[in-house]
């Protein structure tokens, strides 16, 4: 993290760079997350239009489960992996 013996200006600059890196990382994650979630939703709507609502594969597996599973795993990964990378981006010394 920041060295307490550095001058205040340099420390403030380093802290600013860390925040910018974290924001860039956050924006990248949110962009991809939003893109994928919208993509999945569009695909789901399209498939539901093609077939009936609550289409059952082989009269067995609900189509909704597949899309819900994909959404859920993406969100859980964002909460775990995404937060870890945001913290890493902040902790990493800026070049």
């Amino acid at each position, binding site marked *: 993290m920041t060295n307490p013996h550095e001058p205040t200006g340099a420390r403030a600059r380093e802290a600013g760079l860390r925040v910018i890196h974290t924001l*860039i*990382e956050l924006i*990248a*994650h949110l*962009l*991809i*997350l939003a*893109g*994928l979630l919208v993509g*999945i939703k569009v695909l789901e709507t399209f498939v539901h239009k093609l077939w009936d609502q609550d289409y059952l*594969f082989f009269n*067995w*597996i*609900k189509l909704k*489960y*597949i*899309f*819900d*599973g*994909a*959404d*859920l*795993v*993406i969100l859980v*990964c*964002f909460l775990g*992996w995404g937060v870890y990378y945001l913290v890493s981006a902040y902790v990493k010394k800026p070049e």
Partner: protein
Amino acid sequence: MSSLMLKFLSRLYTLFKFYSTMALLGAIAGIVIGIVEGKPLVLIAAFLVVSAATMMVLLSAQSHRRPQRSHGLPCERPPILPESLMIVSLPSEVADDIIGDLKDEFDHLRSKYGRSSAVTWYTIQSWTVFIKAVAFHCGLSFGKSLTSESRR
């Protein structure tokens, strides 16, 4: 500025690959949950099949086991199941070489990065070799790279 943009785009691509893979895994998990919810017996059947296959592989490997080579390093066994899969699937003329090479690399990685990294690497390598060996037995073309694996 352009290098920053390139870095950002490359990061976006990496994240896209990761999250898409996770979405795919989530979809597969959805299918599995759907199947299990519809017919819970499938879960028990899958468990039995996997257990039986694992036991068969371990027993078969036990009967084909070759004497261990001794190395200068303090010896620790690689994971048993991946090694057994290779013993069972590989042709006998290349099995010793491939397993010996992987064991050497396993010892090297274990001393350098620790046991868990070495086990992960060993497991991935043995599954790769196993899939190639099965493909080779089935006459699939990408199984031919097995011989190049043994030459390394």
